[in-house]
């Protein structure tokens, strides 16, 4: 598929140039007619606005591929486990996966990779999986990308699922990108919405781009499986059905020893509440001003009965707090019951990471701060006065 420009029709009006989200169109110096460059993604935005129909999308013949795609059926979820613990995002994906699989009328399967993790299968069934594919192998004991990708690719080649979802976590994003190349599939990163086009059997993958300034809906027309990593906390798990069971298929693979060796694992959050799964989060931004001032936020977190401490990119970049606390586009996505943003201006990059929180409270002395645009309750005031007052009121 490519953008075709009929220069005889083009009047040089420039309407398409202004519309292109990728800046791929320009007007030629010599005659003002439109020209397209490498940034074009054939999204079609310009085709619709051209008043004279000079722009068309040329579709290549992909019938051969389409026929092969027909052989792929079923929806898979990568069941991410760490040290034998299933990660929340897996259950969230099973929840959404169940909905999508039912729409498509196919089975929902989980893929469990690890060593001595067979016991986790039951939980996957309880949360909605019809089948569990298990590769239990010493090479998979600690996560490293290469054997994980090898195992997943082998399963995909053999069982041919039409879609494969994984959490957009450090593990999911790390090895699924290898799988996509190995099995010659399309992969969409970091999705925040998923749906299906039942008729065309397409996974509709929506994700933020340009720092969250725009949303893009992406499909994978011919290649299979259609692969996506999905942000944690954007979908909710189903209520587990105790005793629900399914078919466990164990695949004995001959995996090579990992080329990357894990020497040591250091948990930096041992004594802290992790923002990623927290029900209450108190976040500090640039307005906090200095590392020692996070103490005020910790007091409030304590008064809330153990909230996690979050931070905006500004606070992390200033070196006031470690990046494990960062919320936003390049940090973690959170969905707590209460999110209290203190001295956070609310750049779009931050908002995409927290705007689906149940209740958002913002404290900022700038009444025009964008954070107030998403806050359920905004308090215009100095955080150095408001936060201690809140702590006091909560303790009363």
């Amino acid at each position, binding site marked *: *598929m*490519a953008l075709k420009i009929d220069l005889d029709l083009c009047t040089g009006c420039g309407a398409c140039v*202004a*519309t*292109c*989200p990728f*800046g791929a169109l320009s007007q030629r110096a010599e005659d003002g007619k439109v020209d397209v460059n*490498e*940034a*074009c*993604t*054939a*999204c079609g*935005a310009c085709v619709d606005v051209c008043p004279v129909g000079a722009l068309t999308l040329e579709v*290549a013949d992909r019938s051969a591929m389409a026929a092969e795609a027909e052989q792929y059926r079923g929806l898979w979820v990568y069941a991410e486990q760490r040290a034998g613990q299933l990660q929340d995002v897996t259950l969230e994906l099973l929840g959404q996966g169940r909905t999508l699989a039912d729409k498509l009328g196919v089975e929902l399967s989980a893929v469990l990779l690890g060593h001595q993790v067979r016991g986790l299968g039951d939980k996957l069934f309880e949360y909605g999986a019809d089948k569990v594919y298990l590769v239990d192998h010493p090479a998979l004991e600690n996560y490293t*990308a*290469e054997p994980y*990708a090898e195992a997943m690719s082998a399963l995909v080649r053999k069982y041919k699922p039409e879609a494969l979802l994984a959490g957009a976590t450090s593990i999911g*994003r790390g090895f699924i*990108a*290898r799988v*996509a190349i190995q099995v010659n*599939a*399309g992969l969409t*990163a*970091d999705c925040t919405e998923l749906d299906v086009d039942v008729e065309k059997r397409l996974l*509709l993958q929506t994700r*933020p*781009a340009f*720092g969250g*300034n*725009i*949303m*893009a*809906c992406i499909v*994978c*027309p011919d*290649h299979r499986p259609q692969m996506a990593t999905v942000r944690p906390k954007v979908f909710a798990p189903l209520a587990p059905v105790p005793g629900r069971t399914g078919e466990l298929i164990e695949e004995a693979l001959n995996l090579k020893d990992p080329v*990357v*060796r894990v020497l*040591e694992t*250091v948990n*930096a*959050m041992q004594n802290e509440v992790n923002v990623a799964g927290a029900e209450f989060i108190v976040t500090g931004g640039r307005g906090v001003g200095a590392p020692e001032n996070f103490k005020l936020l910790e007091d409030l977190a304590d008064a809330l009965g153990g909230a996690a401490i979050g931070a905006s990119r500004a606070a992390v970049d200033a070196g006031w707090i470690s*990046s494990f606390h960062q919320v936003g586009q*390049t940090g973690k996505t959170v969905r707590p019951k209460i999110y209290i943003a203190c001295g956070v201006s609310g750049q779009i*990059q931050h908002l995409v990471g927290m705007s689906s929180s149940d209740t958002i409270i913002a404290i900022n002395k700038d009444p025009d701060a964008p954070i*107030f*645009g998403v806050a*359920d309750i*905004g*308090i*215009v*005031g100095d955080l150095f*006065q*408001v936060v201690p*007052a*809140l702590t006091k*009121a*909560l303790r009363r």
Partner: protein
Amino acid sequence: MHIVVCVKQVPNTTQVRINPETNTLIRDGVESIMNPFDENALEMALQLKEKHPGTKVTVVTMGPPQAVDILKEAVGRGADAVVLLSDRAFAGSDTWATSYALSTAIGKLEKPDLVLFGKQAIDGDTAQVGPGVAVWLGMPCITYARAIEIADGEATVERLYEDGYEKLAVSLPCALTVLKEANVPRMASLRGKMAAKKLVIEPMTAEMSGADPAKLGLNASPTRVVKIFSPPPKAGGVKWQGEEPEVMAQRLVDLLRERKLV
């Protein structure tokens, strides 16, 4: 040691705004910059070069002709060689096709011991190209790296995960995607800038890279963008101001208790 660093020219997304009437990105006045995470990858390479004399750093980018700007910036900071992979044939590449194209360009270079990438690009945020190139090159890839040490052909890398970090060991060659925490990127030196000014960069075309034309550009890209739209604005709620902090704090706590949230 030969280190290849892949960099991308991106619009500074912190400056990008949406025109609410046309629903399109306002790109006017938005500067093009080296992807910030790629700066960390380049800095990691330059620091390794300082530690290990004789190391050569080659910076590779794929993009339109104006992407030479970021290559010149890289030379200003101390890169030894640069490659601009530029051809209409690459137009519309998604991460699959991009990683293939980059791997063919790297394949034309002296065999690298280390291939570095930024964690992700701030325009696409996919984090897929680094691991993808590694597959094409047949290398292992460690994502989210914040520190590296190299001795006797082996790298020890700190890889960040959600709750902490892991220390990993791997034999070279390998690929790495680098985090912001890794370092503070240097600024170009005066002599580097002068050298960059004199530099003439001839683009490497698809043909020169030896890439299979069937694997390039939009037609070889499995994914398609079918719709672009502005994120739905979330309506703000109430805003309290002009009152004593204690009064507002108490009202908030009362409200949260009433809703049984605390």
